[in-house]
């Protein structure tokens, strides 16, 4: 019974906090400028992040990663959230986990090719992202309408994908499609492959997402990843923990910023924080932060058998709690809270996006209770 970080974990946390301090450190203008680039993030920061090893963290050692566990993932994502980091870490971790999981499933013929892609990814040289969501599916991970039909040595992919996170700048997509035997598989598709029509757009947090239309896209058979929907669900659980941890970081950022504000800002001749209603509302927010932390820790420490359930539960709880704290933070800041000039609004918008990662709070709640 010990919730202290190990020395290694503390070092990891310090490394990410250093990255945040050096790269952002309260410079909202620099962050905004990075968001306005076509990629939606800073290439320089991305390279530095890769150097910290963060991108290699959850990848197994045999695939060239650091083999970090859930606690390490939590530590990193919380620190990134607290730093309001704009770079596509979550998207990369998802893609890396899929490639890594696929590599481990079979020593497939295509392993070398996938390993090379993975290595480039975690080095920060290539951006790969999952293209799975379809409009008809809403949050149902098992609903895939895109098809992959074999034709000789190749496979032909047709369909449409939406809400492809970081899809505006990705070099490769991991595209889910339904194979002729009705199972769901994943194929690596280059962004510039013929038949791929990418339409970039911005999400609330300023990130560059994309819609894809896939018309007769031809990929080599061995571009398929081993492992189907089951692998995706495993990765989704990890992604939910990561999203919950990042939201926890955002909650602490929102809470601490707001607490400082109500202590210094005065109204009607008194500090805002001396009004009992403000005190109780801040107390409610504090309770949410602590309870959210408990859920994230719970999921990070859950044994494998219960991990998917715990991660879904943490995601469901934290998504609602983070939104509530973000709304409180906006309200407490008054007029300034609704501008783009404080971290508050940016954190709210990032929470909105994370809250929908691999389904909204209700979808996660349903997974949680069905697994119970």
């Amino acid at each position, binding site marked *: 019974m010990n919730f202290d970080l190990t020395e290694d974990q503390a070092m990891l946390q310090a490394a990410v906090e250093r990255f945040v301090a050096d790269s952002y450190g309260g410079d909202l203008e620099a962050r905004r400028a990075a968001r306005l680039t076509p990629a939606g993030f800073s290439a320089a920061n991305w390279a530095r992040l890769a150097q910290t090893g963060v991108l290699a963290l959850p990848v197994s050692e045999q695939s060239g990663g650091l083999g970090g566990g859930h606690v390490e993932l939590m530590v990193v994502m919380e620190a990134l959230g607290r730093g309001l980091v704009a770079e596509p870490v979550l998207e990369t971790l998802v893609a890396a986990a899929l490639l890594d999981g696929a590599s481990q499933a079979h020593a497939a013929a295509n392993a070398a090719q996938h390993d090379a892609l993975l290595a480039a990814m975690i080095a920060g040289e290539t951006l790969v992202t999952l293209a799975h969501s379809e409009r008809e599916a809403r949050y149902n991970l098992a609903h895939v309408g895109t098809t992959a039909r074999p034709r000789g040595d190749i496979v032909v992919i047709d369909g449409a994908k939406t*809400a492809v996170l970081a899809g505006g700048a990705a070099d490769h997509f991991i595209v889910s499609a339904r194979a002729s035997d009705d199972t769901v598989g994943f194929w690596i598709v280059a962004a510039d492959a013929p038949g791929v029509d990418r339409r970039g757009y911005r999400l609330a947090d300023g990130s560059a997402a994309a819609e894809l239309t896939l018309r007769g896209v031809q990929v080599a058979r061995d571009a398929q990843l081993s492992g189907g929907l089951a692998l995706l669900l495993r990765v989704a659980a990890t992604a939910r923990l990561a999203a919950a941890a990042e939201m926890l970081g955002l909650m602490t950022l929102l809470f601490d910023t707001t607490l400082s504000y109500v202590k210094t800002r005065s109204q009607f001749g008194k500090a805002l924080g001396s009004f009992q209603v403000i005190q109780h509302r801040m107390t409610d927010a504090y309770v949410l932060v602590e309870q959210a932390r408990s859920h994230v820790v719970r999921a990070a420490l859950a044994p494998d058998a219960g991990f998917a359930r715990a991660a879904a539960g943490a995601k469901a709880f934290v998504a609602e709690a983070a939104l509530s704290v973000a709304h409180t933070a906006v309200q407490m800041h*008054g*007029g300034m809270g609704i501008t783009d000039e404080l971290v508050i609004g940016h954190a709210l918008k990032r929470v*909105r996006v994370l809250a929908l990662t691999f389904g909204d709070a209700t979808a996660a709640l349903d997974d949680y209770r069905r697994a119970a």
Partner: protein
Amino acid sequence: MDMSFSPADLAFRDEVRDFLADELPQRLRDGMNGTPSVFVEPEIGLEWQRILHARGWLAYQWPVEVGGTGWTPVQRYIFEKECALADAPSLSVLGLKLVGPVIARFGTPAQKARFLERILTGDDLWCQGYSEPGSGSDLASLKTRAVRDGDRYIVNGTKIWTTHAHYANWMFCLARTDPDVKPQAGISFLLIRMDQPGVTIRPIIGMAGDHEVNQVFLDDVEALVENRIGDEGQGWTIAKYLLENERGGSCAAPRLLAELDRLERMAATQPSGTNGALGHDTDYARRLAKLRLEAEALEMTELRVLGELAQGRKPGPQTSLIKLVASTLRQHVDELIVETFGYDGLQLATERPLYGNESPEPIGSKPAQLAMPTYLNSRAWTIFGGSNEVQKNIIAKTVLGL
């Protein structure tokens, strides 16, 4: 008890409906519906005001002597409701509802002649100089200073949250003309030209990327004494009149109900991802129905106030809760709209406008594109015009006697 409209009122309603059907262009309806922020752009608003002015209906909130319509409270309600249901652009609050009535009530004949007609024609566009950095909901603490210098005041200070200052050629402004009396007593109500040296406008961009409000720096800016409304030191009284003037009849619910209808239709075609449409998901349908119950209660509360006004009585304490309920409900509706569109609800285009041919292509649908910016702007409802916290303080004190 009787909540029906009289035959004369029904005839008036039909007259308004016919007018809207004939005279309100689709382009303006689209402009209204395609605006995620609280105020429509002048480009949309002014065109509609010109149409209303031509019909003689623009100054309906003003006394008859200065061009008002002389409508009964019920007629005003009917007009506002029909306009809301027809997606008519919202009218400029600043000129028509705020400074216009103040000039009509406190202005000299010369001031009335000088300013009122130009509000109606749209030749003058107004902004409001009330809030200051550091004063927020606490008006009495304002610091902008106006020093008399012959037939003019020299004004120095900073105003913030100034809606459409970047379009306005005039500002009505509260400034401290006497620092030596108690805070409320030393304030005057001045009209200031925006197109003069010393007026600097800093845009404040909202979370959704909209430019509605500004910070306005006033450095040795001139305000003519002839453009002071009321006596020196009467600013606080005028500001209070203006506030009370705002608290007459209210007509927020009809538009909310119309939006819930629209949302219900959209939800009926949104995929749920499992079985059929999102609108048929019990949980979702119940959430929507609960919001509708809130909106229907609000509509009835507004009608109860109207009932008081229609009997020639002062409205009861219900008026004070309408802003509180309406703004909170507005936010809950906008939250549900964002959620309705699933991942499509996350898109946030920062180009403006989002209506018309130049607007960016939406992901999924136009309503999906509007959802997130509307939701983000909507956080302002419980902050501006007296935050929810301030509203509750007021109700506790004035209505509950606490």
